[in-house]
């Protein structure tokens, strides 16, 4: 039986779903009997929910993203004048916490070796066609964010987005509105994937864009399967002869919730 001190201490991790099943169950058992713990939990949960719902997530100005891309360009292919200026800039801010950066490097290395081994195992199990498609999907998702070209047609009205595809594709993608469930429809665009034009429906959830790729040609229905790549999450499935892939930087469980909602639509 978990004692009060221990349960009280673990409450934030319970709110954040960072506990293992056994600990979570033990905390729940204790919560039923303990008034102070229940009060503390309510407060933690209230702040957790309110920040997520109402806290502002600032977005980088487009000009800043451009400046950074230019900086990287200048660094990768330095010209004399530009290089000196940049060195100057970097030098001015440099009482760099070198030790901590090195510490980070070592930690990042350890993490990445683990991640590499793990993903190597995953990717070996995949056919190379699927691998290429995943890479293409992520590249397309990244590109859509970089050049600020998420939508060709920007609208939260499915009756505007769906007809827009008429005449541009040899199929008609389904467009559903999930704003009430927290996934706002933002628009649609044409993209090119796997050697053919595809429809992309763009949604947004808490500032995180979701690209939903749709194209025909699935031979059989397959259930959703998850993949991670470069910090992005992908969920792909087939249904009604159509292929679907959702790509986002959302947490896996939230992207799965999105896919479940989509699939529940008639």
């Amino acid at each position, binding site marked *: 039986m978990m004692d009060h001190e221990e349960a009280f201490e673990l409450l934030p*991790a319970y709110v954040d779903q960072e506990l293992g099943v056994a600990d979570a169950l033990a905390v729940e058992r204790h919560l039923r009997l303990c008034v102070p713990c229940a009060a503390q939990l309510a407060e933690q949960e209230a702040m957790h929910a309110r*920040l997520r719902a109402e*806290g502002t997530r600032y977005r*980088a100005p487009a000009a800043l993203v451009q400046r950074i891309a230019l900086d990287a360009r200048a660094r*990768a292919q330095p010209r004399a004048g530009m290089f000196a200026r940049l060195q100057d800039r*970097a030098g001015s801010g440099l009482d760099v916490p070198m030790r901590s950066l090195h510490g980070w490097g070592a930690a*990042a290395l350890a993490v990445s*070796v683990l991640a590499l081994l793990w993903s190597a195992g995953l990717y070996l199990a995949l056919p190379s066609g699927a691998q290429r498609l995943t890479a293409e999907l992520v590249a397309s998702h990244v590109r859509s964010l*970089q050049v600020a070209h998420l939508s060709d047609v920007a609208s939260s009205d499915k009756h505007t987005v769906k007809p827009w595809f008429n005449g541009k594709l040899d199929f008609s993608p389904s467009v559903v509105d999930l704003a009430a469930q927290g996934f706002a429809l933002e628009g649609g665009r044409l993209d090119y994937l796997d050697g053919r034009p595809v429809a992309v429906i763009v949604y947004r959830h808490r500032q995180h864009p979701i690209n939903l790729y749709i194209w025909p040609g699935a031979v059989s229905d397959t259930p959703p399967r998850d993949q991670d790549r470069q910090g992005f999450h992908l969920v792909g499935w087939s249904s009604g002869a159509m292929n679907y892939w959702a790509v986002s930087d959302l947490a896996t469980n939230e992207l799965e919730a999105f896919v479940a909602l989509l699939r529940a639509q008639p």
Partner: protein
Amino acid sequence: MTLTPKERRFRELVLPHIDSAFNLARWLARDDHDAQDIVQEACLRAFRFFDGFHGNDGRPWLMGIVRNTFYSWHRQHQAQGRNTVFDEDLHGGDASAATGVPRADDNPEAILMRRDGRRAIDRALESLAVEFREVLVMRELEDLSYKEIALIVGIPIGTVMSRLARARKQLAATLAPGDRKHDGP
């Protein structure tokens, strides 16, 4: 324009996370222009150290560099005695009152049109001490795991948990008087 392989990898792994980097910098510095300077500087550092990065999730890596850049920038400003804007004591909840600079959205109409809740929660978060503010931003607004936060901040996972608990408690305490006020006549 041809990209070098390093540049291409940098574009794929780091550039997509500029929003996360900016959000963290903006909440740490509490100023739009300073946040832009910090993120740009951090990205220069990231590019310089990029050869040493072999992971495939650039987001926590970049956010760690943003955080380090903020702290060295912050120390520098303190050393120069130009730290009035960032003196925690001055931030009693309303940043514009402390800096004397009116916020662009501070006109009465904008205030009325904005939802009270949004404004209150942002102000409350802004008023927290930086070590509490940063863990809340990383956890609630950026959805990082305890493990990622622990790596970025350089503290044990248990400390992430207790710091989040205290941060939420302070946030609730800061919000309570304001909420009562709205209930009144």
